[in-house]
């Protein structure tokens, strides 16, 4: 996943600068929509969904602090145990979950993920949040929305809308995990069964 082959079937849609600009724009949008810099605003918390959502959430938090001066708590929410397709396919390892101190009750939780596709991951995240506490609001920020929704789920903050066909796949590379920032489109020659996210 971390090779920039640029070979047959792989096209870079967003380069490193594009990603940085997009992250900054989302950060501004979050500040504006939640009014987190005003004194009586509902506190905001960012929870990244592993793996890609976690470094993304941290970068967003850093940008939000840079632009607004507010240090927004950041955590991770692994949704593996709430997936609806666990019994199919091989055993999946669990990823870390860290809920910032104070919990999620009465808070505006902004879920952060790199790619939004079928919506099942977010649905699982909503189920998980339900068992953890009762947020005041739940919002969703994604870097890329590639369409193909299978559930009535929408994002509040979208970095880039990238409609794709079923024979294509979107890969988000992030500095913290892959060594560089990019969004790539992969063409597949044969029709293959997707694993929608």
């Amino acid at each position, binding site marked *: 996943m971390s090779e920039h082959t640029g070979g047959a079937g792989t096209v870079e849609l967003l380069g490193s600068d594009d990603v940085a600009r997009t992250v900054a724009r989302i950060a501004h949008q979050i500040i504006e929509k939640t009014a987190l810099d005003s004194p009586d605003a509902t506190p905001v918390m960012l929870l990244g969904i592993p793996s890609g959502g976690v470094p993304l959430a941290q970068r967003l938090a850093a940008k939000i602090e840079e632009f607004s001066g507010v240090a927004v708590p950041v955590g991770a929410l*692994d949704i593996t*145990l*709430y997936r609806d397709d*666990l*019994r*199919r*396919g*091989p*055993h*999946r*390892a*669990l*990823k*870390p*979950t*860290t*809920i910032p101190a104070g*919990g999620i009750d009465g808070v505006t939780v902004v879920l952060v993920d790199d790619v939004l596709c079928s919506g099942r991951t977010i649905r699982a995240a909503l*189920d998980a949040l339900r*068992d*953890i*506490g009762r947020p005041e609001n739940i919002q969703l920020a994604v870097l890329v929305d590639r369409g193909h929704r299978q559930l009535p789920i929408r994002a509040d903050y979208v970095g880039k809308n990238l409609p794709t066909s079923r024979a294509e796949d979107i890969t988000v590379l992030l500095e913290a995990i892959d060594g560089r920032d990019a969004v790539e489109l992969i063409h597949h020659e044969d029709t293959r069964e997707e694993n929608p996210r």
Partner: protein
Amino acid sequence: MKHLLSISDLDRDEIIGLMDEADRFREALEGREIKKLPTLRGRTIYTLFYENSTRTRSSFETAGKWMSADVINLSASTSSVKKGESLKDTALTLASIGADAIIMRHPSSGAAQLVADWVAPGGVGPSVINAGDGTHQHPTQALLDAVTMRQRIGDVAGRKILIVGDVLHSRVVRSNVDLLSTLGAEVVLVAPPTLLPHGVEQWPVRTTQDFDAEIADADVVMMLRVQAERMQGGFFPSHREYATFFGLSKARAARMKKDAIIMHPGPMLRGMEINYAVADYDTTAILQQVNNGVHLRMAVLFTLLVGDSAEAGY
């Protein structure tokens, strides 16, 4: 991984994988009011205990229920076993009822393996988890011990672990020796020769009778329960003699390294292998062991029951 019968069946990656997943489960449940995960909803787990146990059985039951499984407890004294039903028939009955997993504790070594062979020939059938078979293995105990050690002293590779007491009759020891040596720890067994199995020479351990010589640089001191009945078998001459040479007294505990910890698989015989007061020291990790037990057992259930096993069988 289809069954969990013995630590000797697991490789290093599998062991660490289970330990890591135990930590993930702890994180997932931390601070929550609703201790419930939907992951095993609709799965039916039977605990089949031929020996009494509060600790292990309730730990497994809690683990299953927190994952939304239906957990049904069977004990030999109230079941058809009393009417003379064979182990094989009991096991096959549970498989036919529709058990997804059978967690069993039995006084005969090898019982869990036999049940696994009977209920899941060719790897198709319920998963069997060995909660202790005779004097053979107690895999989840060793795993939760390892999780506890890692929490308190970090990576066990190269660290010195003392296990003191009745090695001969202990299934916990055999599992721990397998696991700790796989993780690269130095294991020293402290026991009188009568309580060491003939054949321990082939184990990847050192054995000694000199507790005092070993305690000062040990990172973990794990005490095993010693049954008073062993005096009758000539294993040691008296309670006093055993406690003097192999008990964890205050004096011995005082000589331990600053960050070393005391562990015990339970139940403890205060005053026999461990001084009454010492059992409550901060250096003990005994209650932590219990706490980790539930998360570790959740990880085991998750690993065995969820997702196709890429490699069939165990």
